[in-house]
Structure formats: C-alpha cells, structure tokens
C-alpha cells in the first residue's frame, strides 16, 4: 500500500483548520494510534475566552496525548499539540514551541499562517502540512511556505468542506500535492504510520 509515496523522513505534521473543521479534526485524531511516530501540531481558530473544553473533548476520542503547549515546551513525537486560545503558536529551531500575543494575523490568534510558516522554516522538506475547512484565507501563505521549503502539502477537498474558502485560498497560492477528503487524509496518515519501523 503506497498510494501517497510517503517515506519515513518526515519529522512533523501540522494541521490548520477553522470553521467547519472541528468534526474532521476529531475524526482524524480518533483513529491515529498512540504510538504515532511524529508530533502533530494543530492550529485551529477558536473562541478566545474559552480556554478549556477542546482538549478534553478531543482526549475522550483519541488515544494520543493532547496538550496545549506552554512557552518553550519541547516538541515530542506521539503528542498532539493544540495552539492555545488567544496566543500564536510558533515552532523554533531547536525543536520547541514559543507563544506570542502579537497582533492578530488574518483576524486570527492563533494564526494558522504563523504556526505553518515557522514549522516550515524549522522542518523544511520534512514537514507535512494539512489545511482543512475554514471561512477565511488564513493558512494559505503557510501552505505556500511549506511547499517552497519542499514539504508535503495536503488540503481538504473543497466539496468535502463545510466551508471551502481556506483550502481554496491555499490551492490558489501554491501547488498542493494532495486534495483529499477527511477519510483519504486518514488513509494518508495511516500510510505514513506504516513507513516507520
């Protein structure tokens, strides 16, 4: 089974999502095994004053350990990291996170562009970027950065999205390797899992 020509070279998976991505994220995280060989870093638009709930909901459905990282926390495989409400989440050289309260980017904090772009800078061609349903253009530039550094780019198939503005923005900005439904994204991640010993 090698539909997607994946290797065991990848170091991280980043996922961006906004309006309409919640069900998709839950579905993806609920089938990924707990010994997944890479860290999964998710930047999702969310209500800024609701600090709790999301991690708890996802944890109920997923075998993976899900946390909102603290500033300067090390990035480890087999973990799912969720950008905290009202902070930007950046990946730093040295494989750790930093947080910031800078201005919103694309009316968003966390901004998907910041998480994706900083991850692209650190992991270069060893990064898989996945952009899901959403109602604004955040994440498009981040996906372009991932592609420009030689990483693998995946967007949710627009017809599979509740709101397709976000994946379409990415498709118009850069070349996307795979345009997939949530079920196909799950297949891709399963194939990725099987590449690692």
């Amino acid at each position, binding site marked *: 089974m090698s539909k997607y020509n994946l290797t065991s070279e990848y170091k991280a998976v980043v996922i961006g999502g906004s309006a309409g991505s919640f069900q998709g994220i839950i579905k993806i995280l609920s089938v990924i095994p707990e010994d997944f060989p890479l860290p999964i870093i998710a930047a999702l638009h969310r209500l800024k004053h609701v600090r709790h709930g999301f991690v708890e909901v996802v944890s109920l459905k997923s075998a993976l350990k899900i946390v909102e990282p603290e*500033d*300067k926390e090390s990035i480890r495989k087999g973990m799912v990291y969720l950008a*905290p409400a009202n902070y930007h989440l950046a990946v730093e050289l040295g494989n750790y996170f930093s*947080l910031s*309260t800078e201005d919103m*980017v694309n009316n968003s904090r966390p901004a998907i562009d910041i998480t994706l*772009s900083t991850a692209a800078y650190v992991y270069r061609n060893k990064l898989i970027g996945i952009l899901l349903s959403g109602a604004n253009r955040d994440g498009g*530039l981040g996906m372009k*950065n991932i592609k420009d550094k030689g990483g693998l780019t995946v967007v949710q198939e627009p017809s599979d999205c509740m709101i397709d503005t976000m994946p379409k923005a990415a498709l118009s900005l850069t070349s996307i390797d795979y345009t997939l439904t949530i079920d196909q994204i799950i297949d891709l991640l399963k194939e990725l899992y099987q590449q690692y010993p």
Partner: protein
Amino acid sequence: MSNTIQDIDIADIRKITGLVYSKYGYDFRDYAISSFKRRMVRVLELGGMTVETLIKKLTDHPAYVNEFLDEITVNVTELFRDPGFWRLLREEIIPGILLNNKEFRILHAGCSSGEEVLSMAILLKEMGLQNNASIIATDLDTTILEKAKSASYLLKTMDVNEKNYIRFLGKTKLKAYYEEENGKAVFHHDLLKNVSFRKYDLVTGEVFNKFDLILCRNVMIYFNQTLQNEVLKKFHSSLFKYGYLAIGSKESIIWCDYANRFIVVNQEEKVYKKVRD
C-alpha cells in the same frame, strides 16, 4: 493579507541587535527568535526599508531608536485579560498579602500600554484598597509609557474589555470608569494616582526595590530561555519573602535555576510565591 513570507537572515538580525546594543544600550540579543524575526520584518515593511537602510538609519539618526523600540516591542493587550486570573487576585492573592501588610507594593514589569495597570487599579478601587497600594509600572518603550499614562484607549477595543470585565464579575460596568471623547475611552485619572510609570529595561536594568506582588504576564515569552532565567533571578531579588509572582497562563518557570525558590500558588493562572531567599 499580512505577509509572513518575507525572510530575514539570523545573521542580519544579529547585526541589528548588536548595533542597537552597542550604540543605545538596549539588549534584544536574547529575545526569542521567531517572534523577533516577525517584528523585524514588520519594521522593514512599515518603513519600506532593507536591512542595510535600517542599519544606516539606526546609525545616523539616534532619534529614530525610539520609533524602532515602539515597533519592535509587542504592545497588544486587554483590560482584564484572562478574567479568572483577576478573580484569583481579588479572592486569594490580595487577601493573602493583606494578612501580613496593610500597605503593599506592586510592580508591573513590561506594562506596555497600561491595560493591566488599569485593571489592577480598578480591582483595588473595588476592594476599597486603592490607597493601600503603591504601584510601579515599567516599560523600555517611552512612546508606549506615554500611552499608558494617558489611560485612554480606542472605543472599538472596549467591547473586548467590557466582556472581560463582565467575566471578572466586577462591581459595576466598565463604563463607570471612563468618559467617551473623540472615539476614545478616557479613564478617570484618579484611578492611576498611586501609580508611578518608569522607563526601565528588564534585560539591562538593576533591581531597584522590593515588592509584594510582581505581574509580568506575557512578557517573558518574547525572551529566550537564557534571558528568562536571568529575569526570573531579578524578580526573585525584587520580591519580599512570601511575595507573589504572576506570569502568563501559558508561561512556565519550572526549568529555571530559581524555580525551587518558589512554590506554585495557582497552576492554572501561573501565580507563584517566593518561599526561599
């Protein structure tokens, strides 16, 4: 769409921070890289500059450095950001300080445009303690300190602030504390009567006083770990024994050299207490 694509070499960043330090004494050399890089790109874009023209401007026009400081530092905050933190202050931390002292001192380190100082002033007023506290608020950016002193903010930001205040469960309405003038909410200056604003650089400044409570929320996230460690030592020296330190809800001191001189008072809101000299 804002541009997060433009790149700037780490070597260029080092050149600029080296120049700003040697010529003006402001030390950004240990700031966290990725956010500092974004700020640098923003400075270049706002000024339509290249790295070379920025270096020339910083070299030839000393007056420009204030503008540079204002652009390079992050000045985004809210009144009563994280309402649960402010409730904790009212219900646990301030009463804890009052057990030992009727009069107490508070430091806002890196106060930016002053929203946290004003939140504190409103909280103390509602507790009937305005005259028991003396507050020092510091920042290295003189432009932003002037804004903090003016205690006036764009009316369009008041929506967020009012919502935070409601979640804080304040005694009245936020509106009770300001007048609307020319699209701004101008807060009553009486609120800041016991506040002294000072230009002070956390990185290079000496310890100058002792406090019962230090607030430094979402400031050290812009520092690298080396610098965070140094600044925590300064906070330790600036606190009375059993004084409190509050940092941002997603910050941590756990790996710092001085971490074991503090205990956790509240893990959720990241409030610590100094227990060892």
